[in-house]
């Protein structure tokens, strides 16, 4: 049998995941975990797109999700490269060590 999940529940799940991601970005000190949290936020928004697409029977939601996936791939590759550079220069992954870039 087909288990039907209502769109509201999925959007709620997406919202929860997004909030989780934000909290993760804010409270985490380790850059890798911050990147992870950003990924969670991206996927939360992708989930919301898919839910909305199925709710109105439109393909656009899934198209958008493919876009988000592609962008996330690019973002992760750049992000990881930057993290590597930061680790090389500061010998640490603590975001608070990068405060000197103020002004």
């Amino acid at each position, binding site marked *: 049998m087909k288990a039907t999940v209502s769109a509201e529940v999925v959007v709620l799940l997406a919202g929860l995941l997004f909030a989780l991601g*934000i909290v993760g*970005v*804010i*409270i985490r000190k380790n850059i890798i975990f911050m990147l992870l949290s950003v990924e969670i936020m991206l996927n939360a928004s992708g989930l919301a797109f898919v839910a909305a697409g199925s709710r109105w029977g439109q393909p656009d939601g899934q198209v958008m999700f493919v876009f988000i996936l592609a962008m996330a791939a690019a973002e992760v590759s750049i992000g990881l490269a930057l993290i590597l550079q930061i680790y090389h220069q500061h010998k640490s992954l603590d*975001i*608070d060590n*990068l*405060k*000197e*870039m*103020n*002004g």
Partner: protein
Amino acid sequence: MDKYLWLIPALPLGGFLILALAGKRLSRSSVAIVGAGSICLSALITFVIGGVFLAGMPPNAVYTQTLWTWFEVGAFSAKITLSLDVLSLVFVFVITFIGALIHIYSTAFMEADRDYARFFASMNLFVFSMLVLVLADNLLLMYLGWEGVGLCSYLLIGFWYEQQANGNAARKAFTVTRIGDAAMAIGLFMIFQQAGTLVISDIGASAGAIWQPNSTVVTVTALLLLAGGVGKSAQLPLQTWLPDAMAGPSPVSALIHAATMVTAGVYLVARMHAIFALSETARLVITVIGAATLLLAGLTALTQYDIKRVLAYSTISQIGYMFLALGVGAWTAAIFHFMVHAFFKALLFLAAGAIIESLHHEHNMFKMGGLKDKMPVVFWTFLVGALSLAAVPLISAGFYSKDQILWYSWTANGGSPVLWMVALSGALITAAYTTRMMILTFWGEAHTPVGHLPGRRMTMPLVVLAVFSVFAGFIELPHNFGHFTLFSDLLRPVLPETVMRADIPSEWLFQLLAALATLGGVFLGYHYYYQQPSRVESLRRNAMLAGLHRFWFSGWGFEALYDRVLVKPFIFISKINKSDVTDRLYTGIAAATGEMYKLLSRTQSGSLRWYIMGLVVGAILILGIQIML
């Protein structure tokens, strides 16, 4: 020939541009060649154009050349148009010819100065502006030249700017003439408002149709124009700047403050005679100003001891004669006296400059003395100039021009016996102070050793000017002998004929009295300063006379009066508002912006997590507001 008219002002302008832009890189001799050469060429072109103009007078007696349109606003268009008629020709001739001589003199006089190029650049710019002033066909272009000569006068009075006093004198000259210039600008606005044009020939042609004779409007317009002339020509009550202007180098005093710029007021009144002819009040004011100035400045000159200040007050006094002539309606007599005065006064200033330089910058006449045999060329040329200034009968040009003014001051329509008396006593005073100056400078014991003598480049202009100071008078002889009126016949197309009164006394008597006044003045000077110098001392011991001497010496207290009435209150007011109230508002805004910037820059902490926090809080706030509303 009229298509070459632009060359006359263009050459000095070119000289100015070369010297101003590349003067530092040029050698001294090339600076002299460019600076003096441009004016000499301009003078040559003036001779050629003037000769052709006078030989074959065009039908309307004027050459015009429109170069380009300056600007257009609605129906009004200001054009850069040069126009040469006989009146401008006289002025252009004096400016370029005397200017060229003075430039040649300056090449030697300023030789040791380190700002050689700056001097010639300013002088060339002055000649250019003065030529624009007299060649302009509309009042707007004329005003451009008018302001240009004011600027150059300022630059050249303050030429030796290291000394505070020179800078002050320059600023004083600029500020005082500005009062007149502002009045003149308002006068131009009024003319434009009523006539709808600023082209001089159009105003002249339609003046009678636009203005009612003796109406208030035309009187006010004429008086505003006159105020401009009074400021530039150092007449009462704006005369205080000219004696101080002697702070400039002597060639500057000769060119600007004797021969050309200070007579711009005479030119303005003569040029706008159509307006002045309509207002009896304005003409009366000119007459009174001229008569009062010539007397007052003459008496002041009698007491000065600085040779250049004597000459400065004498200039003021002689321009007073010109204004008197203009006021009584003797237009050509005023222009004739202008030309003759330009020759002998430039000569006197240049000779005085040569003396001052030879005596190591000694200005005090009482410290000169005995120069008769030591500087023969300067002595003889100075003597010729002095004869002309004192208007010694028959042999000097000054006699012919001044005698004409004396004659008209009684017999012209606007003249009266009182004016004639004033002018006659002025002639006596002129002769007296001229004799005093001659005797103190050239006779008696030498008080200061003579340094190097002036060279050929300095004496040649003196000799040429001396020749003109004698022979320039013969182009216009009195009506009763010779009756040779070349000069006034030439000016006939431009200036109206002098209207005479019905009952004219014999002219012989007037000439005799004028000659007697001159000789009397010479005798007074001779008696008090040569025969019995001790009598001057005894006169000075008299308390009342000593007080009078002090009063005259200070220029009749005008300096002190203006200082008390205008300068002191102005400084007082500016002191009250030292920290500019209106400025506070703007500095306040600037300070508040600075504080806010400091506050905001605190948020740039560099902590990424705080930034994200800010983003989140901001997003929640905006979302919240949207949901709420």
